[in-house]
């Protein structure tokens, strides 16, 4: 307390049974030798849940008379702005918390009132210091204790060698934090290098660590030791083999990770009835001796759907941060090779005939497996198709190849029994082949509606195979 306790004082600091401070009041009346009788007003708790408030506006100025019931100031609590009424008569001597004071705790002094108007002047300006000091003391203690934990090593060098100086400047180190081992306390280049190696932060002397300092933060050295230690047992046992990654796989891995992390994928699934397509393919083979795979027809169907819904045929422009319509429809076909997954491109797939597509796919696949693909044959593309139909995969979700907007994952055709409306209009159960298509789309470009539009175009291509002529 800054004043000795006197009869008019309402503050007592006794502690209650559970350590709660039971007795601080927000109203303190002082009679002290130095200052006239005055009343210290603290921030009131205007609602039972209030812990702190802001002073929105002072309605009274210093020197104003205060009657009982007069509003002193407007206090902003977390719920509302309430008026603080005075219950005593007097004169406002000093405002300790000016307008705009934020987060004043309940009980913190905000004003001083006196009984006599003449006493207004005798309240010194530094009366609030007494309260501030107490607050500062407590914060000081805390910071002191925090600092004790981190020992600052003393600089022990007398001069710095020129090369060391250069290194220090280059890395922006604090010379006072470095340990010198040279003759006559010279800071050598080696010392600086050692400090750099041990992970000295370029700013802040507290976090420096060298061998002599016991309290060292994490460094590279221990981890290096760890690695070398752990490397030894690896060679000793033969439980596994490391496959070093080929360059292709590295790139694939990197690009896939990037794609998955940076592109918001939207997945749209659609099952299409494959029977018309299969019938068509069979017809081609039997009657015209033209061999085309299901995949080829799928490529053509997709290409035509892209032509019908050109908004889907876009690329994401990273610089501009917006989609860019592509002129041509170039379909990347996923081909599995030993070295990794390759995606050779069929350019202008919508304009090529089925047989042309078929031939090209075969050629590209061969080249891909032989590693003879030219860059322009696998770079670019506006849409990807990944077909795992030849494997027992029903459906899967593929990852988009940036900068493309989508990829279609094609599963295998499964025979299922479903109600089918026959020619006579009667619904009958029939055996049909269904194939799952899953479109992974970039949600930045696509929304559900656009994706569905594309899928419906695609589905109609599959259902009525004659649309491939369009």
């Amino acid at each position, binding site marked *: 307390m800054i004043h000795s306790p006197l*009869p008019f004082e309402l503050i007592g600091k*006794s502690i209650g049974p559970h350590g709660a401070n039971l*007795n601080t*009041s927000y109203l303190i009346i002082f009679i002290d030798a130095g200052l006239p009788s005055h009343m210290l007003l603290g921030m009131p708790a205007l609602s039972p849940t209030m812990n702190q408030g802001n002073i929105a506006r002072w309605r009274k100025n210093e020197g104003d008379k205060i009657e009982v*019931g007069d509003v002193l100031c407007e206090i902003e609590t977390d719920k509302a702005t309430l*008026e603080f009424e005075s219950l005593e008569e007097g004169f406002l001597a000093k405002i300790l918390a000016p307008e705009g004071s934020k987060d004043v705790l309940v009980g913190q002094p905000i004003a001083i009132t006196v009984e006599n108007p003449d006493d207004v002047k005798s309240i010194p300006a530094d009366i609030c210091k007494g309260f501030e000091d107490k607050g500062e003391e407590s914060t000081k203690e805390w910071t002191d204790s925090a600092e004790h934990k981190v020992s600052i090593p003393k600089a022990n060098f007398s001069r710095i060698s020129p090369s060391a100086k250069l290194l220090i400047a280059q890395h922006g180190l604090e010379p006072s934090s470095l340990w010198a081992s040279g003759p006559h306390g010279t800071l050598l280049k080696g010392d600086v290098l050692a400090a750099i190696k041990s992970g000295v932060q370029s700013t802040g002397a507290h976090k420096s660590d060298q061998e002599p300092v016991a309290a060292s933060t994490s460094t590279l050295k221990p981890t290096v030791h760890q690695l070398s230690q752990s490397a030894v047992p690896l060679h000793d046992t033969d439980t596994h083999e490391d496959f070093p990654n080929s360059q292709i796989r590295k790139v694939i891995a990197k690009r896939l990770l990037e794609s998955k992390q940076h592109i918001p994928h939207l997945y749209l699934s659609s099952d299409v009835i494959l029977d018309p397509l299969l019938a068509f393919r069979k017809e081609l083979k039997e009657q015209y001796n033209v061999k085309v795979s299901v995949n080829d027809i799928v490529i053509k169907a997709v290409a035509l759907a892209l032509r019908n819904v050109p908004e889907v045929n876009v690329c994401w422009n990273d610089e501009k941060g917006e989609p860019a319509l592509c002129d041509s429809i170039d379909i990347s076909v996923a081909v599995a090779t030993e070295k990794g997954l390759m995606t050779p491109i069929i350019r202008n797939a919508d304009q090529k005939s089925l047989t042309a597509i078929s031939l090209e796919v075969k050629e590209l696949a061969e080249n891909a497996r032989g590693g003879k693909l030219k860059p322009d044959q696998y770079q670019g593309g506006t849409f990807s198709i990944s077909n795992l139909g030849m494997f027992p995969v029903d459906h899967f979700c593929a990852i988009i190849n940036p900068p493309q907007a989508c990829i279609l994952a094609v599963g295998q055709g499964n025979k299922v029994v479903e109600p089918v409306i026959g020619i006579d209009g009667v619904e009958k159960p029939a055996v049909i082949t269904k194939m799952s298509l899953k479109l992974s789309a970039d949600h930045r470009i696509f929304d559900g509606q656009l994706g569905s539009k594309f899928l419906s175009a695609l589905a109609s291509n599959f259902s009525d195979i004659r649309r491939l002529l369009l």
Partner: protein
Amino acid sequence: MAAAAAARRLSAASLPLRHHHLLLRPFASSASGQPPIAVETSVPFTGHKIEPPSRLVDTTPSELLSFFRDMSMMRRMEIAADSLYKSKLIRGFCHLYDGQEAVAIGLEAAITKKDAIITAYRDHCIFLARGGSLVESYAELMGRRSGCSKGKGGSMHFYKKDSGFFGGHGIVGAQVPLGCGLAFAQKYTKEGTVSFALYGDGAANQGQLFEALNISALWDLPVILVCENNHYGMGTAEWRAAKSPAYYKRGDYVPGLKVDGMDVLAVKQACKFAKEYALQNGPIILEMDTYRYHGHSMSDPGSTYRTRDEITGVRQERDPIERIRKLILSNEVATASELKDIEKEVRKEVDDAIAQAKESPMPDPSELFTNVYAKGLGAEVFGADRKEVKAVLP
């Protein structure tokens, strides 16, 4: 003249000041040699089915001073309670009575400690008037052991049975049937005492009030229903709450009297009159036209449903303490500085009481289980699984 005035002043100054018996009984003028002062009440009484009493009230200087002292004490107590609440020392509900002190003091001046008073939750000052001490009040408000209800009641449940104060009730209007019951007991025991059941303008529309009034009128019980009309039921103005805001007429077959509740002497006159009437004829309704400066409770700023001008207007025109101050000064019972001294003393007393109340500890946790059942019942308390007995209540 001057000598007589000086004599009056001297006798006023030598009044004994005690902590526990805060209220001074008004001396009979002949006993102490003080000439009675006849004061006219601010407004005449209005009667319903009854001839109202005279406007002229007899009082003595010492009585006036005691009124002043006691009302200042109550005012100071309520204001200090406000500060304590804002410092989070008093928690929960706190309904303050400042502005309405005249009703408590005037009522007390007209009756004895054998008469019963029962009121609602705005009970701090009635408790004080009935002989409660400041320390007990503050300790109870802060929930400490030395409170009048052992710290277990809080603001809304002050009691002093030995002085005929039956609380302190939270449910609106519930105390009125109880008050009629007290009167029934008094009539049964032929004590020649009465019961005063206080309620507010908000509670005046409660049904049980009329039920109790009906049976009291049938049995001629000595109950006086006092409506402390401060014109706001929480935040609702009386004209919005009651079709007939003439609460003194609401008894219909029961006579009523409308009193200026800010004039101590009018209240005293009306209560004396009502006691005489009730002992002879049964129930009577008194409507005290009064005002509260605070909001309904500490959570209510009190300015959202009425203007600050209205509040300051009442403070300036009708404040009960100011009225007595003017009476005292005009009748030269004391000087202004003497009155100021009394106020300072009162303030000091209140501060001391608060400091003393703060020293008192919180009740022991075992007190949770006492005063719940009749003594010696020995009720067993089970845990949530209802398998093992956790405790046996006293």
